[in-house]
């Protein structure tokens, strides 16, 4: 006798709205005439995102659920709602960036430089599939941190990743690089998800269930020393750490960020990172909540390695996007500090709220930075090489000023949101009062100082060097891009000066912690 599973549709509504819109998008691709598609996709995508966001708000207002929904498969709890809100905001602005045909290949199937491609360009073709693909990916991002069992998490991982693999290969310029990024991301992503899945299998073998809560309970009764558990957790960890780009699993990040179309990079650098951190937190805090020994030393090593690798390798980068990718790796390292800052419930809430705030501020600044990257162009596309940015402060002081501001936010200079983000996480780590974690914070600030070097280097180039005669042109931004840049700049300032309202939200979201 099988009872039909109960599904709390309202709780899952944001997810469903996005998936529904994505499906509609696919249908539009199939049935709408080519010239209409974009006109339908853009509002559809944006509206669905707004709708989902509204639903998230509504849920927050109506009260945060205290138990997992969908038979324990999905946990829509405080942190989830905050993460959802964050992802939806970041996705919304990223989609505004995606709304720029110049970025995407007119015909992905055409060989670069071939007659077909030329024809596609002259006909004004465009891959409007980008929108539904993005929606699928965003839906995956929402589900990933919300999944309360490992199977759902795996599915969410794939739902999130598969469209992104494709999207990475759709850059209009430098298509070879774009395709290479796509294939690399795909192969490595698939490889790492195989690890994730094998880890899931082993944990299933250990606990008899893939439910996070069940695993945690299994740990509560058994002593957590079992080969299956060890290897399973390691494998699972590989899958999750891969997604956030922690060393030594960071290798894909620079390549993919560099090759992918910049709006997609923005989406990945902001949304995916947030989602992956949500998932990582849930696995380590919920599933391993009852582990009777400390897994933090391992995370310590990973975090230290990640921030050092990110900061140091970024120093000698010459491609602006690649540099930002390494910066993202370094930031992942800083964020990992918060993951380790676990203690009693109050401490956990502190750490969680810090992480949530950091993720939000970092995401917004990142999207803003990539938005500006899309605007600085050479005849052959974006002016990717840093030397091309020389003297930009002279040619286009406002744009360069904003970019400098974003960079300073990355560096964590006070009066930018990045400062409070870092502060919130470091504070939770120091609050634990453990020397080893405080030591890691010290390492983190030293790495930040090294990281500041490459942010500052770009500022030096933009402002202190003289522009070359044939410097890049700064295109007049579309309303959408302007809006993105404006929003990001505003948020970066506002959260750097008056972070309290958002901190309140993050604290409220974190207070309940993850549902068990």
């Amino acid at each position, binding site marked *: 006798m099988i009872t039909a599973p109960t599904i709390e549709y309202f709780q899952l509504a944001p997810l469903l709205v996005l998936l529904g819109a994505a499906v509609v998008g696919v249908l539009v691709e199939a049935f709408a005439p080519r010239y209409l598609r974009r006109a339908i996709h853009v509002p559809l995508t944006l509206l669905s995102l707004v709708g989902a966001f509204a639903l998230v708000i509504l849920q927050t207002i109506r009260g945060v659920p205290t138990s997992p929904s969908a038979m324990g498969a999905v946990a829509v709890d405080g942190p989830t709602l905050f993460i959802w809100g964050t992802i939806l905001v970041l996705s919304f602005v990223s989609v505004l960036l995606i709304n720029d045909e110049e970025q995407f290949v007119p015909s992905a199937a055409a060989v670069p430089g071939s007659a077909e491609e030329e024809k596609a360009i002259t006909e004004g073709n465009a891959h409007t599939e980008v929108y539904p693909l993005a929606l699928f990916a965003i839906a995956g991002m929402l589900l990933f941190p919300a999944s309360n069992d490992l199977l759902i998490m795996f599915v969410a991982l794939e739902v999130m990743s598969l469209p992104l693999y494709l999207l990475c290969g759709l850059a209009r310029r430098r298509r070879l690089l774009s395709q290479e990024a796509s294939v690399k991301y795909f192969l490595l992503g698939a490889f790492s998800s195989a690890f994730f899945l094998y880890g899931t299998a082993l944990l299933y073998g250990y606990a008899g269930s893939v439910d996070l809560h069940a695993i945690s309970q299994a740990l509560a009764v058994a002593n957590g020393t079992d080969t299956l558990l060890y290897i399973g957790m390691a494998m699972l960890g590989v899958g999750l750490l891969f997604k956030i780009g922690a060393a030594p699993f960071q290798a894909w990040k620079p390549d993919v960020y560099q090759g992918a179309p910049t709006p997609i990079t923005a989406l990945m650098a902001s949304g995916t990172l947030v989602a992956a951190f949500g998932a990582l937190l849930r696995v380590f805090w919920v599933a391993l909540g009852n582990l009777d020994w400390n897994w933090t030393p391992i995370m310590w090593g990973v975090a230290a390695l990640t921030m050092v690798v990110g900061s140091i390798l970024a120093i000698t980068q010459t491609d602006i996007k690649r540099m930002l990718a390494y910066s993202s790796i370094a930031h992942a390292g800083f964020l990992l500090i918060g993951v380790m800052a676990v203690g009693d419930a109050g401490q956990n809430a502190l750490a969680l709220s810090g992480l949530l705030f950091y993720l939000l501020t970092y995401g917004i600044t990142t999207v803003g930075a990539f938005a500006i990257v899309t605007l600085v162009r050479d005849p052959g596309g974006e002016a990717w090489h840093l030397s091309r940015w020389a003297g930009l402060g002279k040619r286009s002081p406002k744009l360069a000023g904003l970019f400098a501001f974003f960079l300073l936010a990355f560096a964590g200079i*006070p009066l930018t949101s990045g400062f409070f983000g870092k502060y919130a996480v470091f504070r939770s780590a120091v609050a634990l009062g453990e020397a080893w974690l405080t030591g890691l914070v010290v390492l983190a600030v030293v790495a930040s*100082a090294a990281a500041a070097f490459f942010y500052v280097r770009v500022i030096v180039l933009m402002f202190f060097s003289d522009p070359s005669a044939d410097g890049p042109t700064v295109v007049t931004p579309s309303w959408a891009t302007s809006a993105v840049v404006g929003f990001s700049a505003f948020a970066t300032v506002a959260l750097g000066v008056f972070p*309290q309202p958002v901190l309140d939200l993050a604290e409220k979201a974190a207070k309940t912690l993850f549902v068990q």
Partner: protein
Amino acid sequence: MLELPWLSFLIGLSVVGAIVVAFLKNDKVAKQTTLGVSLLILVLTVVMAVQFSPNGDRFQFAETYDWIPSFGVHYAVAVDGIALVLILLSAILVPIVVLASWHDAEQGKRSVRTYFALLLVLEAMMIGVFAATDVFLFYVFFEAMLIPMYFMIGSYGGAQRSYAAVKFLLYSLFGGLLMLVAVIALYNVADKNSFLFPDLIGAVTDPTTQKWLFLGFFIAFAIKAPLWPVHTWLPDAAAQAPAGAAVLLVGVLDKVGTYGMLRFCLELFPDAAKWATPVVIALSVIGIVYGAIVAIGQTDIKRLVAYTSISHFGFITMGVFAMTTTATSGATLYMVNHGFSTGVLFLVAGFLIYRRGSQFIADYGGVQKVAPLLAGAFLIAGLSGLSLPGLSTFVSEFMVLLGTYQRYAVPAIIGTTGVILAAIYILWMYQRTMNGPTAESVAEMKDLNGRERWVVAPLIALIVVLGFFPKPLLDVINPAVKESLVNVKVTDPAPVVAVKEGQ
């Protein structure tokens, strides 16, 4: 006393001024506006200072608002005597620097109004950093003020400006970030849910914790000050910065370091401060002698002045950590006097360099013959750099050494050799640039013009007046220093003979 939010008003005025200046279309109007705003701030600061009652509450003109309750952070500003004189220093220097920099920004073909807007932003932050009575707020200003200075050096500086700017920024940022960890830890250890300075005094009791936190703060301040051996950014930054920025950098920004030592290192971590004193005093003494010796060997005027400052900062830190009323008051006074003295030295050197287009001493010679006023101003500035009695710097240097001797005789004596070395570096530089037969390259040099005289005259007047009559400042500084030292729980060593009589 008028119950006005003086400090917020000053900060706000400079910020608003900066924004207005940034959006003005006409460079000339921008300059005039900047000058006007900075003069207005000066007037208001003086009006405020006059209302300060030296023997009243320690912190006056206090304003406290919650800023980020989650972090226990307040927007809390107030001044005691120490902060007041430093704010006064900033407020006096800015209009002078504005006037002195009238044409500086035009050389580099870069936005003139941005330069002046940055000056005003910097002024806001300088006032804020000294006025902050919330440790976190202090930190915010402490770090944020790097940025305008960074742009001023990097955009408007000399040939090596970007190297110097980056070095300055990274060095300071490194120290600042270490301090950030200490700030966070302080908050947690104190466990008061507040960053307000008065709440935190005496909050950290565990000796080991105190030491660590002290180190976190101290390294940042030592870099900022700068103390030997973390000083090498200063010569580069000061030599590359435009003269006006160099004045504010060395005259005010670096004071944040020594001010921080006095305010935070000593009062928040008294035991650790005492524990660290031997090392700090040793570093200071090394700094005094070393800075002076290296200054003697410089071939670049601005670098030379920068190294003299390193020597002088040695005196200041020595005075702060000697922890006697005389020495610490002297150190505070030194901060102010050094601002004026180095200020005028940098500015006159700037005028000189502007005329000849070279920073190298070897490119000058016999300037006194063709530009006697310039030479005279340079000499007076130099003499104040070597702490000639009768000029303000002497009072402070004397107090520092006198007070230090009471507790640490040998360092004071070694530090006093700086007096001899100072004579060598200043007079030798003066001799090489101003004396001797007039070099061909400077034969056509013009003497100080009207604007430049207005730049130099007030500073020289201040230096001389304060040299003979430092009492107004000392009356304000002394009670604050005494209160600080009470918090540190030290008492002045009694005179040997008087003790005998007492027995």
